[in-house]
C-alpha cells in the first residue's frame, strides 16, 4: 500500500482555497519556488490574515503622525524637523528553540525595521514572559534570552532602556520575547520602502545568504529540489551584531548622502519578500538574478536562496549613476554588496537562476492579495467561573508580612539583574535609566525629551481582556507622564494563542477594542504593532498577552525630572488620584498571597485617565519624586521609594487593604512643601524619615529587610541556581 502524497501546499500550511487564489492570480499552477513564496507571505506571521480586519479598529490620524502602520516602523513628528521612529516585534518561538540566539536575532530584526526608515536606532526595550523560575528549564530559557538580548544589543551598540517581565506557568513552554526599538532622525533622512524608477538597481547589502530559515522549508526539500537538504538546514539562526553594526553605519551614510531611492530589510521569506514588497509598494516590478547573490554556501538551490532568512541583510534601490558610490560605501564599512536586480515597469517580480526562470508573479500580489479571515469568536467559558472567585482580602492583614512576600516575587523585586546586563547608557542620552517607571532620553542639541514605557498585564487581561488591555495603555501613559513626558504615540504587540480557537479570537477582539478605546481617550495614535498568534503548546493557549510600548514626548524636558532616589528626611508623601475601589482581581495580593486568580478588574474612566495623566505631567516639572502605583499597590510603590532612596517613611490613615489595592490611575508624589499644586484629588498620607516603612496600625517593615528581600528576589533565584547551561554563544 502506498500512502497518497500530501499536496505541497498542504504541507506548507495552505488551504485548498488559498491555493486556488494563487492559481487564479497566475493563471496557471505555481512553480515550486512561487508556491513557497506565497506560503510564507500568506502565512499568519506575514499577512496578518486573521487579525487585519480587527486591526483596522486602531486609529492613527493625528496630525503629528508622519508614517502610520504599514511601513517598517511608525514615525511621529517631534517638531523642528525631528522625528521619532518606533516599532515592536516578537521573537517568541525562536527563543523557545534556542533562547540566546532566538532573543538575539529578535533584537537584530527590530533594529533593521528602524534604520530602514532612515533613523538611527537609539534605544531598545524588552517585554518578557517566562515560566516560573523555580523550574530549572525556565531559568535556563530566561537566562539565555536575557544574555542574548545583552549580547546582541550591547555589541551592536544600541542601549536597552527597559522592558517588563512576568512569570507564569502558561509561559513555560511558550515564552514571549518582544522587543521594541526607537529611532531618531531628521525629516530629510526619512526613507520609505517603495521602489521607483524603471531601470534602477536593487543592491543586496550585508551578510552572505546561507541556509538559514524555516519558512517554505518543506517544499524546498521536496523532490524537485535536492533530497536530503533538510539535514543541512539549521533550525537556529545565529545573530551577528558586528555585521549589523556595520550595516547600520553604512545605511546611515547612504541616507546622509542621498544615495538610495528606497530600502527594505530582509525578514521572513528573505529575498522573495523584500524584492516583492519594495517593488509592489511602488507599483513597480523587478527582475532578479539569483546568481548575483553572495552566498555563504556554494551549493544552494534557487528556492533556498529566495527563501533564506539569513540575518543582517538589506535591499537598497539605487539609481544606476549611484551604484558605484553605494558599492564604495559598502566597501568602506567592510560589508558585502551585490547588485541582484533591476526595477521594471512591472507588475511582475521575475526571478532567474542560471538563466532559468524560477518565479514570475505580480509583485504586489504576495503582499496585497493575501486572504483575510474573520474568524469566529466566542466568549470563553472560564470567565464566569473566574469572576465568581472573588479575591478574599482580610481587613486586619499585616502589611509588613504581606510586603515581605510580595517583595520576594521576581516580577516585583529588583529587576536590575536584567538591566545591569544591558548597556543602558550609550549615546549619553539616558536621563532616567531603567529602574524607574518610564525611561527618559534627551535629544541632544534640543530641549526635547522622549520617554518610553512598555507594559502588559497578562493575568488581569485574562480576567477581562477589554478592561485589562485598556489599563495597560493607561499604565504606560502614566509611567511616561511621571517623567514629564505626555503620551504621544503607541505601538502594540498582540501575543495570543491559537486564533482558530473561538475563545482566543474573542480575547483578541476584546483586547483590541480595549486598547483602541484607551488610545482614543488619550488621543494617542497607534502607529504600529505586531501580532503573534499560535502561542499554544500541548493544546494550552498562553494567557492573552498584549504588550504596549508608549512613547511620551516633552519639550522642554523638565530640568530635574522626578527620580525614585530623591526622597529625603521630612519630605511629605502624597497620594494622587481617586480613592481605591477595591480592585484585587489579578492583584499581586490575590495571586501571590491567596494563590488565586479570580474576580473582575474594575473599569476605568477615560476622562479620569486624561486628567490624572495630565496632572502627573504638570507635577513632573516641579516635584522631586513621582511614582505610579501598579503591581502590589500603594505598599509596593512606597517600599520601592524607601529602598531606592534609602530612607524610611511613616504612613498614616491608610488601611492594610487599601495598601495592596491595585485601583489604577493613581500615583505617589513626594515633596518638600506641605501643599501639592494639582486639581486632581490628592491627600497627604505620610512623611519621609527613619529607617522603617511604618504603616501605623497596618504594620511595619524595616527598610533594611525590605531592601534585602527586594534585591534578592530575582537575582537570588538566578544566582548559582541556574544550572542547566552556562555555555555562551559568541558575544560581548
Amino acid at each position, binding site marked *: 500500500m502506498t500512502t497518497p502524497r500530501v499536496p505541497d501546499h498542504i504541507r506548507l500550511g495552505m488551504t485548498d482555497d488559498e491555493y486556488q487564489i494563487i492559481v487564479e492570480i497566475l493563471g496557471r499552477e505555481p512553480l515550486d519556488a512561487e508556491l513557497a513564496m506565497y506560503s510564507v507571505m500568506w502565512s499568519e506571521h506575514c499577512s496578518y490574515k486573521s487579525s487585519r480586519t480587527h486591526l483596522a479598529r486602531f486609529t492613527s490620524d493625528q496630525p503629528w503622525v508622519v508614517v502610520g502602520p504599514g511601513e517598517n516602523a511608525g514615525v511621529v513628528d517631534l517638531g523642528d524637523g525631528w522625528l521619532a521612529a518606533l516599532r515592536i516585534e516578537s521573537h517568541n518561538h525562536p527563543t523557545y528553540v534556542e533562547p540566546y540566539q532566538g532573543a538575539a536575532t529578535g533584537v537584530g530584526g527590530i533594529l533593521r525595521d528602524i534604520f530602514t526608515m532612515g533613523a538611527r536606532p537609539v534605544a531598545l526595550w524588552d517585554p518578557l514572559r517566562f515560566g516560573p523560575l523555580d523550574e530549572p528549564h525556565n531559568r535556563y530559557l530566561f537566562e539565555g534570552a536575557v544574555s542574548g538580548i545583552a549580547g546582541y544589543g550591547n555589541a551592536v551598540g544600541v542601549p536597552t532602556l527597559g522592558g517588563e517581565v512576568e512569570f507564569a506557568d502558561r509561559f513555560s513552554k511558550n515564552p514571549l520575547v518582544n522587543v521594541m526599538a526607537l529611532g531618531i532622525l531628521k525629516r530629510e533622512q526619512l526613507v520609505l520602502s517603495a521602489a521607483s524608477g524603471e531601470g534602477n538597481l536593487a543592491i543586496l547589502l550585508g551578510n552572505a545568504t546561507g541556509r*538559514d530559515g524555516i519558512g517554505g522549508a518543506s517544499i524546498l526539500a521536496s523532490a524537485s529540489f535536492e533530497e536530503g537538504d533538510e539535514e543541512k538546514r*539549521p533550525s*537556529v539562526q*545565529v545573530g551577528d551584531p*558586528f555585521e549589523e553594526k556595520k550595516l547600520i553605519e553604512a545605511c546611515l551614510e547612504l541616507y546622509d548622502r542621498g544615495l538610495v531611492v528606497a530600502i527594505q530589510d530582509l525578514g521572513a521569506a528573505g529575498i522573495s519578500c523584500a524584492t516583492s514588497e519594495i517593488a509592489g509598494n511602488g507599483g513597480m516590478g523587478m527582475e532578479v538574478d539569483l546568481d548575483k547573490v553572495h552566498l555563504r*554556501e556554494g551549493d544552494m538551490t534557487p528556492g533556498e536562496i529566495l527563501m533564506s532568512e539569513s540575518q543582517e541583510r538589506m535591499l537598497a534601490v539605487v539609481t544606476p549613476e549611484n551604484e558605484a558610490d553605494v558599492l564604495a560605501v559598502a566597501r568602506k564599512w567592510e560589508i558585502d554588496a551585490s547588485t541582484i536586480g533591476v526595477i521594471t515597469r512591472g507588475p511582475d517580480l521575475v526571478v532567474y537562476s542560471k538563466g532559468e526562470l524560477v518565479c514570475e508573479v505580480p509583485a504586489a500580489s504576495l503582499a496585497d492579495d493575501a486572504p483575510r479571515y474573520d474568524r469566529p469568536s466566542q466568549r470563553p467559558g472560564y470567565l464566569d467561573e473566574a469572576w465568581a472567585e472573588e479575591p478574599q482580602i482580610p481587613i486586619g492583614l499585616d502589611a509588613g508580612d504581606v510586603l515581605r512576600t510580595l517583595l520576594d516575587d521576581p516580577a516585583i523585586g529588583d529587576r536590575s539583574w536584567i538591566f545591569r546586563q544591558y548597556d543602558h547608557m550609550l549615546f549619553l542620552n539616558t536621563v532616567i535609566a531603567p529602574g524607574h517607571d518610564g525611561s527618559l532620553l534627551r535629544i541632544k542639541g534640543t530641549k526635547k525629551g522622549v520617554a518610553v514605557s512598555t507594559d502588559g498585564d497578562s493575568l488581569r487581561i485574562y480576567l477581562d481582556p477589554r478592561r485589562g488591555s485598556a489599563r495597560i495603555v493607561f499604565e504606560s501613559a502614566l509611567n511616561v507622564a511621571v517623567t514629564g513626558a505626555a503620551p504621544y504615540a503607541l505601538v502594540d504587540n498582540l501575543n495570543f494563542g491559537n486564533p482558530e480557537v473561538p475563545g482566543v479570537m474573542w480575547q483578541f477582539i476584546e483586547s483590541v477594542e480595549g486598547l483602541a478605546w484607551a488610545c482614543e481617550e488619550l488621543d494617542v495614535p497607534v502607529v504600529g504593532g505586531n501580532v503573534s498568534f499560535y502561542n499554544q503548546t500541548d493544546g494550552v493557549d498562553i494567557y492573552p498577552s498584549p504588550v504596549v510600548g508608549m512613547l511620551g514626548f516633552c519639550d522642554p524636558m523638565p530640568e530635574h525630572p522626578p527620580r525614585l532616589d530623591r526622597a529625603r528626611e521630612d519630605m511629605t508623601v502624597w497620594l494622587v488620584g481617586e480613592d481605591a475601589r477595591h480592585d484585587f482581581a489579578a492583584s499581586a495580593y490575590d495571586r501571590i498571597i491567596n494563590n488565586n486568580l479570580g474576580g473582575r478588574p474594575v473599569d476605568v474612566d477615560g476622562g479620569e485617565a486624561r486628567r490624572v495623566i495630565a496632572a502627573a505631567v504638570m507635577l513632573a516639572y516641579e516635584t522631586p519624586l513621582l511614582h505610579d502605583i501598579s503591581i502590589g499597590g500603594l505598599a509596593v510603590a512606597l517600599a520601592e521609594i524607601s529602598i531606592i532612596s534609602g530612607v524610611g517613611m511613616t504612613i498614616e490613615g491608610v488601611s492594610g487593604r487599601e495598601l495592596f489595592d491595585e485601583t489604577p490611575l493613581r500615583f505617589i508624589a513626594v515633596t518638600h512643601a506641605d501643599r501639592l499644586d494639582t486639581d486632581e484629588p490628592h491627600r497627604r498620607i505620610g512623611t519621609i524619615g527613619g529607617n522603617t516603612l511604618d504603616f501605623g496600625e497596618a504594620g511595619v517593615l524595616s527598610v533594611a529587610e525590605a531592601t534585602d528581600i527586594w534585591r534578592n528576589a530575582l537575582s537570588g533565584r538566578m544566582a548559582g541556581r541556574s544550572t542547566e*547551561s*552556562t*555555555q555562551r554563544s*559568541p558575544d560581548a
Partner: protein
Amino acid sequence: MTYSFVVSIARKPGLSDPEGTTTHKALNDLGFAGVTHVAFGRTISVSLDAVSLDAARTQVEAMCEKLLANPVMETYAIEATP
C-alpha cells in the same frame, strides 16, 4: 581514581559562524592569503573522581547532555586524556 577528559564542542554544520568568518577575513588581511576555511569550537577539560574509566565517561556524557553542550546548535566528542 581521578580521570580526565577533554570535551570538544563544535557548531553544527550549516550554522553561520560569525567569529570564524571575521577571523578568516582578519587572517586574509594579515597576508595569509591561502586560508580557505576557519571555524571556531570550544573545549572543556574535566577531571573527576570515579570508580572506573567507564563510570567516569558515563558521567561526562551526562554532563555534556545536561550542561556542557547545547544540543540545538552543537555536537560534542569526548576523549580521555592521560
